[in-house]
């Protein structure tokens, strides 16, 4: 595919080209979909050793309370997310969702408490809308800043700790969802022990001027391989993680998306700060009463992948509609096809047999607990 000049580049764009990446348009950026070794090897290498991902297209946003009190920023942000931000300790990070007045999901994000400010990482395709949403929602009490001067990389896999440990010895003391500032080769980076592959790993925010240097040093390690968007997608699907725009959007609620674990007790009915976020009426009611459809894992019985968009039926003749696949493909570590999608709540139990329409055939699939692979987070 020819590069389009209007596509934005991350600070690592030239490095991707020098590594032989195949570049594709993604969320307004020209991004590497795979390197010469290909999606399959990249995926398996990440689960066996360590993979390095450029996620600089994602939005990094700082929220600073005008009062100087972090609790004021936390309470302000709680007006936009059904999540306990006030209870998030300094140096800790938490998954969150922006909801709209109908209870739909505007975006999913990470929120970190950095002591004097909140640090957010949001999806590339949503980052401008998220920024406007934050400005509008809490600009009165907080200074909201898009950190356009920082790159973001992810180092994921069982060797990630050892690799990063060669640049920063303290890394071993971090646990899952910790956030810390660290000097990597005299470059001040913000490191979180998190990621989106189901593996232990880290996301590293780096000042742009040093992004290529830090990334290259990590890539020099024999255990580290650069990983493109193709494997990023198969890794997150195996890990049962939602891709915004595929597996959730404004038409799905957090409860339908089976993300109620992201809504802490303090924000639920009976909690200290129950409700008070967009769509609270619907979302709290759904927490109590359930929903008519649910996001579930789906394991095709055969070898044929079942892709996003495939219709699901309760019967092998395609008469009784049961739902839709939202993400599907081949899981290299599972060594077979995997998918997720929304199904009627009555068909959402693990072990339920359904049929996916693929090229005019109705292929049997089984509702399966997520994730498809064991998560290896260092809790």
């Amino acid at each position, binding site marked *: 595919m020819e590069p389009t000049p209007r596509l934005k580049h991350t600070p690592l764009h030239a490095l991707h080209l020098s590594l032989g990446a195949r570049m594709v348009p993604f969320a307004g950026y020209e991004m590497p979909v795979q390197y010469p070794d290909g*999606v*399959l090897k990249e995926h398996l290498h990440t689960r066996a050793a360590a993979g390095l991902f450029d996620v600089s297209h994602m939005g990094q946003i700082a929220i600073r309370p005008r009062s100087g009190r972090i609790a004021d920023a936390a309470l302000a942000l709680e007006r936009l997310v059904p999540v306990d931000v006030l209870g998030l300790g300094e140096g800790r990070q938490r998954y969150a969702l922006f909801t709209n007045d109908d209870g739909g999901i505007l975006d999913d994000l990470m929120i970190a408490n950095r002591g004097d400010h909140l640090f957010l990482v949001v999806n590339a395709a949503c980052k401008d809308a998220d920024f406007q949403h934050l400005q509008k929602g809490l600009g009165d009490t907080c200074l909201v800043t898009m950190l356009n001067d920082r790159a973001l990389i992810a180092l994921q896999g069982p060797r990630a700790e050892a690799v990063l440990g060669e640049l920063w010895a303290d890394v071993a003391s971090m646990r899952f969802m910790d956030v810390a500032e660290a000097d990597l080769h005299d470059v001040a980076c913000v490191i979180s022990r998190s990621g989106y592959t189901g593996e232990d790993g880290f996301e590293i925010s780096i000042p742009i001027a040093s992004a290529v240097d830090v990334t290259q040093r990590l890539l020099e390690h024999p255990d580290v391989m650069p990983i493109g968007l193709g494997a990023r997608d*198969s890794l997150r699907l195996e890990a049962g993680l939602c891709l915004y725009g595929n597996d959730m959007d404004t038409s799905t609620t957090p409860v339908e998306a089976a993300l109620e674990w992201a809504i802490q007790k303090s924000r639920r009915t009976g909690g200290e700060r129950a409700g008070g976020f967009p769509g609270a009426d619907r979302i709290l009611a759904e927490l109590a009463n359930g929903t008519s459809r649910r996001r579930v894992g789906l394991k095709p019985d055969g070898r*044929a992948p079942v892709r996003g968009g495939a219709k699901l039926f309760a019967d092998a003749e395609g008469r009784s509609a049961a739902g839709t696949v939202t993400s599907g493909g*081949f899981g290299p570590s599972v060594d077979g096809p995997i998918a997720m999608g929304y199904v009627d709540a009555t068909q959402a139990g693990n072990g339920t047999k359904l049929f996916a329409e693929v090229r005019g055939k109705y292929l049997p699939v089984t509702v399966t607990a997520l994730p498809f692979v064991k998560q290896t987070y260092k809790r």
Partner: protein
Amino acid sequence: MLKFTEEHEWLKIEGGVATVGITEHAAGQLGDLVFVELPEVGANFSKGDSAATVESVKAASDVYCPLDGEIVEVNQAIVEDPALVNSDAQGAAWFFKLKLADPSSANALLDEAAYKELVG
């Protein structure tokens, strides 16, 4: 006679039967294949019909029937090991044998030099 299509299929034609596969160029573009679906023996296709499907980790792609004809044999080896298409696209990883409805229709397809020029 070896011929090619603009849709990146190759045809080795002997006695009115074309052995059909996808080119090394196409296999490289598709990436690691994980699934292949082949037509039934005895099925009739027109030129341009989707005759087979290949799937990589990322996406599904059609393999088109390059000429009118009837499927007389399929290569089960690539169903059992789709990676064979990546390693030997223009050899062991042929897809199907097509009995041509009109053997002279193959003359209009690309020769090797023209195909090489097409894919640069």
